[in-house]
Each structure stands twice: as structure tokens, then as C-alpha cells.
């Protein structure tokens, strides 16, 4: 599967970028070029140089080191929100599609209401209760992504449950759990993967946004979001400095969103196996490259 994944340009891009991100996050635990938090009043706004690869900021801190330290926050946010979104998404999808009729239709209404609940509001509420921290970002983004995933996945499960092949499987005697694990779950998995990768991408963006607004990491945690918030104030004078965290965020978000599509394409037999008859070619949907 990995070979099929990297055979596509989008898959290769996603794997390389995200692989690099994880490696850099691991490296940053033991080594950064400089101390990312050490202010140096004699070298404010230094240009890129061998000592400061990406230059320094208003306090003379090394941008490259700070960026590197921020990878940990990005990985933590993406993975943490992804895990929470998966758990919340799977539970709500199951309750919303496999239970008694009134329970699942009640869940559908609940999901529609919850989807309208802004992530920012959740973050503000959590901050009011628990105080500002990275955990607030992870939990609030995870919850709202989980609700979005459940809303889409519920519809998909209901559609598959009514499909001819599920009816045919039931007609041949396959019972509830057989239908669930051999037909419903595998056929809903591609959509789930795509939604999850989008949720992780959204989480990275939302961390930047929430940190910008002061709901995310404190000043003792290096984060690309708070970095961007600091540096963009000076963008008219020192345009280069804000570009680094901006580009890093954009790159990771793009890689995460493409990863889902690439995984889906790499696991769909209609796209990866030959067609003996030459007919019945699967239509190339949006997001299908190569």
C-alpha cells in the first residue's frame, strides 16, 4: 500500500512533508541550532546567515530554532485532535446510524445543531473553565471535527446500508455484525480517512488561529500560530520573517489534506487494479490524480 501511496505525486508530497515534520519534531526534542527562547538585544532582525538561517525576530530570537521547536506543537495538535476527532466521530456515527430509529434520528438532529457550534466558541468556553493551554485547542478542534466527521459518515453508512450489495449480502444470510465489519466499515473507511485528514489539517490551521487570538499555547510553548501572530505585526518592515511560519503552516496543511485523498486512492481496488474487460472504468472523481 505504501508503494501505491508514493507512486502518486500527491501521495509522495504528503508522505515526504509529513515524514520530515515528524523527524524534525523528534530532532527538536534533543537539538535546536540556538535556544529558541533566548532573546539577544544586539541582534534584532538579523538577516538570514549561517548563524541564524532564517534570521532573528524583534527580540533577537533565532527564527529557525523557534520554528523547529514549533514542530512539536504542530504534531501534537494534529495527532491529538485527530485521535479525539476519530473517537468522537466513530461513536457518534455508530449511535447515529446503527441504533433504534428514534435514537439515530435524534442523533442526526443533534449533529446538525452541533455542527453550527463554532470551534472558537468551544475554545472560549473551555478556556473559561480550564484556562488557556494547548489542550484547549486540541480538545475543541477534536470535538468539532468529530461532529463534522460523524455528520458526513452517518449519511454514508445509511447510504451503504441501503445499497444493493448489503441487501444481497443479507439475502445470502449474512447477519448484522458480518454486514457491519465486512461491508459497512470497509466501504465507509475511505470517506472517513479523507475527513480525518481534513480534520487534522483544520486542527493545524485552527491552532494558528486560536493561538493568534490568545486561546492556544502560552508564551512558554513554541507554536507556529503564536509565532505568526508576533511576526505579522512587522510584515511591512521585515516581510521575510512572517513568511517562514506562514509557509510552514501552509505546507503541512496541504500535505495533510492531500494525504487523505492519496490514501483513499491507493486503497481503492477500482483505481489500483487493472480492468480485464476494458469496460466499467471507475469514473475519475474530484481529487483523483495520476
Amino acid at each position: 500500500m505504501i508503494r501505491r501511496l508514493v507512486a502518486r505525486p500527491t501521495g509522495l508530497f504528503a508522505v515526504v512533508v509529513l515524514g520530515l515534520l515528524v523527524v524534525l519534531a523528534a530532532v527538536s526534542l534533543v537539538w535546536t541550532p540556538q535556544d529558541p527562547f533566548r532573546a539577544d538585544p544586539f541582534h534584532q532582525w538579523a538577516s538570514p546567515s549561517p548563524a541564524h538561517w532564517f534570521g532573528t525576530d524583534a527580540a533577537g530570537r533565532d527564527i529557525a530554532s523557534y520554528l523547529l521547536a514549533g514542530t512539536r506543537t504542530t504534531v501534537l495538535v494534529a495527532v491529538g485532535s485527530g485521535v479525539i476527532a476519530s473517537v468522537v466521530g466513530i461513536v457518534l456515527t455508530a449511535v447515529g446510524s446503527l441504533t433504534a430509529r428514534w435514537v439515530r434520528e435524534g442523533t442526526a438532529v443533534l449533529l446538525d445543531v452541533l455542527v453550527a457550534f463554532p470551534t472558537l466558541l468551544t475554545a472560549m468556553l473551555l478556556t473559561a473553565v480550564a484556562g488557556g493551554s494547548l489542550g484547549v485547542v486540541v480538545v475543541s478542534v477534536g470535538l468539532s471535527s468529530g461532529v463534522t466527521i460523524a455528520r458526513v459518515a452517518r449519511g454514508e453508512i445509511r447510504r451503504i446500508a441501503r445499497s444493493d450489495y448489503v441487501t444481497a449480502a443479507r439475502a445470502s444470510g449474512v447477519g448484522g455484525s458480518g454486514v457491519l465489519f465486512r461491508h459497512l466499515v470497509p466501504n465507509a473507511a475511505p470517506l472517513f480517512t479523507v475527513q480525518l485528514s481534513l480534520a487534522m489539517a483544520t486542527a493545524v490551521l485552527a491552532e494558528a488561529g486560536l493561538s493568534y487570538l490568545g486561546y492556544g499555547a502560552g508564551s512558554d510553548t513554541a507554536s507556529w500560530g503564536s509565532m505568526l501572530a508576533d511576526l505579522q505585526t512587522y510584515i511591512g518592515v521585515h516581510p521575510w520573517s512572517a513568511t517562514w511560519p506562514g509557509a510552514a503552516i501552509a505546507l503541512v496543511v496541504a500535505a495533510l489534506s492531500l494525504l487523505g485523498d492519496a490514501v483513499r486512492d491507493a486503497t481503492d481496488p477500482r483505481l489500483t487494479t487493472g480492468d480485464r474487460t476494458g469496460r466499467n472504468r471507475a469514473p475519475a472523481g474530484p481529487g483523483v490524480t495520476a
Partner: protein
Amino acid sequence: MTDATGGLEVRGLTVRSPGRTILDDVSFTVPPGRRLGVIGASGSGKSMTSLALMGLEPTGATVSGSIRLDGTELVGLPDRERARHRGSGIAMVFQEPATALDPLRRVGAQIAEPLRLHRGLDRRAARAAAVELADAVGLPDPGSLLRQYPHQLSGGQRQRICIAMAIAGEPSYLVADEPTTALDVTTEARILDLFAGLRAGMVFVTHDLAVLARIADTAVVLDAGRIVEEGPVASLLASPQHAATAALVDAARATARRTAP
């Protein structure tokens, strides 16, 4: 609950969805090994008859009346018990073989599933039995064909897979809902030969009178959810009594005239 008569006995089968009666007091009997045709225009209740026989009517529909399979009453059974009869007592072949197979599973696995369920075979034995079954339904080179995914097969091959799936549990009855409508004429003829060679009794739903004449001895005509006429296929076609039957026969004659050389 059992009585001496075997076979499939349907008495007063009625299906209602909220505000509408889809099937109204449908009764017929199919002795073991015999084939009954069910004909009618679109919307006459043919497909609902098949689904109700399987106990797979859509949610919200209520079924009343009686369906007895070899003396056992099926209507009103809890779904868990009803499921035990599906595939082994009575199985079904669907109209559209392109959508009746799971696109993500190899066709061999889809045949093996009912084999493991009904014959209690382990994985290896089920695989061997699937090859035998594929061979029995006339699939070429079953060993490699069963490793394919549904989209890699032709329409006729896919319908043969569906038939293999349906007969895997050695059902005494088979419900076939327009199983050749989605196929080309040559393939249709071969698939009909395959059906005609099966041992199972059959409820064969079709709107095509040529198919009916080929597969069934007796038939019932459905119109707006009711049986309006029944009898031997030959006499139904030669001297239709009800307007709905006559309309089907006329339409078939008109098509035959248009397509005649």
C-alpha cells in the same frame, strides 16, 4: 406450526407503507423444484414481492399474511431467526449485478461468505468450495477469476457470481428479481440456461414474456399490488383474460414485430 405440505406457500401477503398498500392479498404456491413466474408492469409490486419473501422489505413497511417455507411460518419471525432462513431456505438473485457485489471485496470472498455461514466451512475449505461453485455456474478459470474484484468482471460473469452466492447455502428456493434485465441478449440466454438447470424451486420475477416462457411453467400477473390473473404460462400468453396481462402480451408482440427482420 408445521403441516404435511412442503414447498413455498404464500397466503394473503400484504405489504403496507405509511399511507399506501404496496402488495394486497397476494397468494401463490410453489411446489419443491418448480418455477413460478411473476409478471407485471413497472410499479405493480414485483420487486416488493421478492423483498417481502426474503424478509428484506424497506424499513417502515409492514408485512402481514403468511409465508410458509416447508411448513415453517416466516412472517413475524424476529430478524435474527429470519436471517437463518436467508441463503439456506430461500435465497435471492438481484437485477443489477454491477451493484449487487461489494466493490471492495474480491468476488471469491463474497462467495465464500455464505459457504462459511451455512455449511460451516473453514476459510480453506470455503475457498475450495467457492472454486467448485464458480465452476458449477459456468465461470471460466475460477481459480484466478475468484481473485478479481467485481469491476474487473463482465456483466454476465458478475451475475454468475451472484448466482453462486445465492446457491452457496443450498437453498430450497431462489427468488430471482429480473436477473437478466441488465444483460445483453446472448448473455441473457446463457444465464437463463443456468437458472433452468438449478435444482431449487424458483420465484422468477420478470417483465419480459420471452424470458417467462423459457423459465416458468406457471405464472401470476401482478397489477397495482394485486394478483389479477394466474395459470399455466402457455395459456396466459395465448389467451390473456385480464387487461393488464393483455397489455403485457400486446407490448411484447409490438416489440417482436418492430425488431423482426
